[in-house]
């Protein structure tokens, strides 16, 4: 890696092209109309803040941050289960870095680490497997989270653990799938969205086809997009164009990476290692049918939830929390009853405040500043 390693992306960050696209967006607006579109994926939200894309849009084009941050959607009860596992004697509990701050009902994994649990941050499930290989006297548990983007790497890791006969490795599977929560959002009668920026990373695995139900059943445009700033602006142009022309379909802006039919090999591996849970709880959205993955019977011996007994207690989202409504675009963050008082980035209650990219955390940090944008 080096200079050449990052240079290939520069063409997707060209400020002059960005201004041209912003101009195109301005030109395709119906005067007086307020547009709300949801970027489904947390990666998009990250890019939007990183590059200040919001700031290039007129104020009547509003981006609503969707449920696609895999860390923020993990409910409190699951974090508690993870902590319970981490506190087991002999266990080395491994997870992705940004999972460590997510609050459970009595603190986060970071707090559990402070209390003595052996919790280690890994960058990939293979790193967790390496720790297991190197410390045969310890039990290594990997807290698997994420959408279809990260699920194949967990699946491959489990296959490798099996192939190498590594018995001190297991996985607490909290993988989720993208379509059910989108359907749940769309089913909501109070939804206020005009279109969707489809999740680019997830789509590299599942393809663009699974999103066809959105235009077919709910009459909303979807544009699967990449993560560079120009990708996102172009996706917004494409959605606005569909709206202006009265079209409504799935378009793929991210053709350089996303095959319309997805990655067959990744899907096969997932099908072998995982099966759908009947239902899974999402922070802020509640229980959603067939939205979570668990480890299949064939790999049951590598399932941490079967190897250990976890409390498995459901911890209800705090009553006052209105993350669900924020996610649906029904209310703005500041309209939530606990926003800015009981719920702050230092002490988050709901999913939207947990990650710095959640809608509420973003508004808390940048809100005053965002008001300076202009309306067309």
């Amino acid at each position: 890696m080096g200079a050449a390693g990052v240079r290939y992306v520069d063409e997707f960050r060209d400020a002059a092209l960005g201004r041209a696209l912003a101009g195109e967006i301005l030109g395709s607006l119906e005067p007086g109309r307020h547009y709300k579109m949801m970027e489904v994926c947390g990666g998009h939200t990250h890019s939007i803040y990183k590059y200040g894309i919001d700031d290039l849009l007129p104020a009547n084009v509003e981006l609503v941050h969707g449920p696609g941050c895999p860390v923020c959607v993990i409910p409190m009860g699951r974090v508690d289960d993870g902590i319970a596992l981490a506190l087991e004697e002999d266990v080395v509990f491994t997870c992705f870095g940004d999972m460590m701050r997510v609050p459970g009902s009595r603190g986060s994994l970071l707090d559990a680490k402070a209390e003595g649990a052996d919790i280690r941050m890994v960058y990939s499930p293979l790193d967790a497997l390496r720790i297991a290989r190197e410390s045969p006297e310890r039990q290594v548990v990997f807290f698997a989270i994420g959408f279809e983007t990260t699920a194949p790497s967990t699946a491959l890791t489990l296959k490798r653990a099996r192939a190498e006969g590594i018995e001190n490795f297991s996985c607490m599977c909290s993988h989720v799938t993208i379509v059910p929560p989108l359907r749940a959002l769309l089913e909501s009668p109070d939804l206020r969205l005009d279109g969707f920026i489809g999740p680019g990373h997830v789509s590299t695995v599942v393809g663009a086809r699974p999103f066809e139900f959105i235009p077919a059943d709910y009459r909303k445009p979807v544009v699967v997009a990449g993560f560079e700033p120009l990708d996102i602006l172009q996706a917004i142009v494409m959605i606005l164009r569909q709206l202006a022309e009265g079209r409504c379909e799935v378009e793929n802006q991210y053709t350089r990476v996303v095959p319309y039919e997805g990655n067959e090999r990744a899907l096969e591996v997932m099908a072998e290692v995982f099966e759908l849970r009947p239902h899974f709880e999402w922070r802020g959205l509640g229980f959603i049918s067939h939205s979570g993955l668990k480890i299949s019977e064939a790999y049951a011996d590598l399932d941490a939830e079967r190897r250990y007994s976890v409390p498995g207690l459901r911890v209800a989202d705090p009553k006052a929390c209105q993350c669900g409504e924020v996610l649906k675009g029904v209310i703005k963050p500041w309209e939530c009853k606990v926003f800015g008082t009981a719920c702050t980035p230092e002490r988050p209650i709901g999913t939207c405040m947990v990650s710095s990219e959640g809608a509420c955390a973003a508004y808390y940090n940048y809100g005053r500043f965002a008001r300076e944008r202009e309306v067309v």
Partner: protein
Amino acid sequence: MASHAPVSDREQKILGIIETARGKRAKFRDEHINMAHGAGGKATQSLIEGMLLPTLASGSLLEMADAGSVEVEGVGLALSTDSYVVRPLRFPGGSIGELAVNGTVNDLAVSGAQPLALSLSLVLEEGLDAEELRSEIEAIAATARSAGVEIVAGDTKVVERGHADGMYICTSGIGRRDPRATLSPSALRPGDRILLSGSIGEHGTAIMLARGEFDLAAPIESDTRSLWPAVDALLGAAGPELRCMRDATRGGVASVLNELARASSVAMVVREADVPVDPAVAGASEILGIDPLYVANEGKLVAFLAPDAVDRALAALRSVEGCEAACEIGEVRTEPPGMVLMQTGFGGRRVIDQLVGDPLPRIC
């Protein structure tokens, strides 16, 4: 036609609550110390402002400068102390011994004091390889010599195996306040310019990669070095126009900017395109999902000064070894007080907030 988006009364009220909370001294309410309390962000701030400052209640501490002030019969002295905890002990570009000297020297230097002498405390782990210790002591001696300071006092403790990661080092330093400038974190004025002495993120990235937790290799070396020559040059070129300097260690340049924006009740605007980042650091940060603005440096300073002194200051700074890439990265504004904004290379704006915890790699 363009107009500002309307702000309702209720929204205005909420924004007011946030603003008040932001300006308030942080409270410390945690039950245990966790790693975030050591990361240099909001949690560290809550520990310092919520527990240490009110309990210790010293005027010089309240300034929260990198070094405290003592006056002895009309001579202004600066006093600073720091503990060094790093794994691995040696890393590309340096070692814990070099850090222990340069770190304290730099805290004195950026406070506008010429470093004179250091004390050295070693906490050693039972079983530490004597050769490893010897090479660190030699590194300490060599670094002190080149920084022009003497080690004049010391202490040694040994703790049981399993503690202290091999060794911890604590150094304290004393320096003489330089009469050419009066610096204070609260001295920033709207219109002041922000200078950076070189490219950012090298030390923290080098350490992260040296730990071998990520399967990444890149030719990145720690930038550890004494900043006194850079400070000396700045004092000479722009002394009275200098408002404040900071070395951008833990928490990176972003944390320095936020601390001073709060201390002076000003806003800052930084131009992303003007912040130098080595391509290898940019690449590693991109892959790890970390922003180099929050990554530790051990030989970079941020200086705030009046606009008419910028050219002189930059010319002087660039003639110092290790500061050839020094540049102006932004300026101080009035509104919104306490906030740091970034003009992104792509043409948008974003807020550079304080770190909430450790800069953790993100997956999504």
